[in-house]
């Protein structure tokens, strides 16, 4: 476990810790049709198979499929921020805030490589102190 994330509670139900204490995003994969989903579920929305889900680590590498830049949000949320839709290499699409980049369309290219990182939730939500959440950052060396 890294120094910065020690003792923090998961902000979302799909953020889990490995036995070694490393945070990761948990997905579930249908054993019948191989569709992957963020977070726990029992049945497959794609093929309707029942009790067919196998847990997996969704990994940290992906491409920016889509985004918007949010200027108006809920109380306590730091704006503007990039709401990013990322296709992970593991086959799952997830959403998150893209950090470490000026939120402007000129800086955001569709399909730019991004990485999942785990940081304190207070980076986005002023009520997030004590929680850890996933974020995206541009993949180093790819700018």
């Amino acid at each position, binding site marked *: 476990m890294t120094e910065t994330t020690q003792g923090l509670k998961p902000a979302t139900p799909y953020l889990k810790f490995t036995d070694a204490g490393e945070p990761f995003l948990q997905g579930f994969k249908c054993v019948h049709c191989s569709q992957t989903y963020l977070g726990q579920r029992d049945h497959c929305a794609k093929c309707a198979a029942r009790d067919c889900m196998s847990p997996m680590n969704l990994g940290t590498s992906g491409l920016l499929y*889509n985004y918007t830049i949010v200027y*108006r949000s809920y109380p306590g*949320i730091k704006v503007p921020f990039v709401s990013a839709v990322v296709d992970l290499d593991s086959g799952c699409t997830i959403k998150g805030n893209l950090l470490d980049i000026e939120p402007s369309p000129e800086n955001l290219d569709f399909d730019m490589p991004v990485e999942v990182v785990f940081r304190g939730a207070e980076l*986005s939500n002023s009520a997030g102190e004590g929680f850890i959440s996933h974020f995206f950052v541009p993949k180093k060396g790819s700018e």
Partner: protein
Amino acid sequence: MSNNVYVIGTDMIRFGRFENATPPGLAAQAALLALDDAGLSIKDIQAVYSGNCGETMVGQRMLQLIGQTGVPVVNVTNACATGATAFREAMIAIKAGVCDIALAVGSEKMGKGMLVRKNRAGEAIPSEGLAGSGTMPAVFSEMGMEHTRAYGTTPEQYAQVSVKNHFHSTLNPKAMYQRETPLEDVLGAEMIAYPNTKLMCSVNVDGSAAAVLCSERKLKELGLTSRAVKIRASALASDPFTDRNLIMPDVSTVTRNAAEAAYNEAGIEPKDLHLVELHDCFATAEICHYENLGLCNEGQGGPFLDSGATTLGGKIPVNVSGGLLSKGHPLGATGIANIYEVVTHLRGEAGDRQVEGATIGMTHVVGLGSACAVHVLEKA
């Protein structure tokens, strides 16, 4: 005799902000207007389908205000497709022969500003704004950005949707806003979620709309054929599984499925339509829906708008009412207000915004979550 179903009365209140209004009170106003339009009484109605997203038992509470006749009442909720779903359920009851004449009414009392979702179960702190955004502006901005990704559609093209629909609303006395917004005003307004500025977001307003539907037998019995409008097709779809749907709501596929079913049922093609009221909850959505409804070719939504095809006087006018962007979007009422708009044109009673010679039109609404309702209406 055929089992066609007809609209014989319809109306809406002018949308706005009514501080002391209640959903049943709003519903009652529209119901009485629609009954007056048909020249009927609530005592003539054999079943009521009431659409509302925020409260329960609005249909019964409406009858408590205008006449407790004891007829069956069904309360319907289906997000922004609520009103159209209530309308469709009324039609189905008539087609099934359960009743001959039914009232569909939609109402909503909205808060001001952005719609806020409740916390999901299992969330330690709200995920909104932490794990990306799921607000309505963000969702529909992403819908537009996906189109931009595929076809290079520009913020100016999206903004032009608002310019058009706000212009249309100046011709509609029942629209919330009746003010033109030049392109520079739209682009210069407060950015809500890129590329949608405040003037590219639909207006949260209070409102209601209603329609009286009847069977062909009842139509002839009442002798109301001169202003009747036939329901040529009614389609309702839920979102099928698509790859990113659970993370980035896909309202395009559900629209395409409902539209295809409606075109098939009506036996027509998009080119046969004279006007369309579609779900412009955000400016970005309208351009995507041109393609989803088959009004233009794939990827051509932006140029299609730029050509003036969807402006009043163009090839296929879209949202001549002002749309959700300017007429307003009281969730449960919207689907029936769209039907009121198209029916009014088919009757040739739309005044300054009349689409000349219109005999067939389409209404489309999408409820996020997702539901899509498409109706094809034809002058009887």
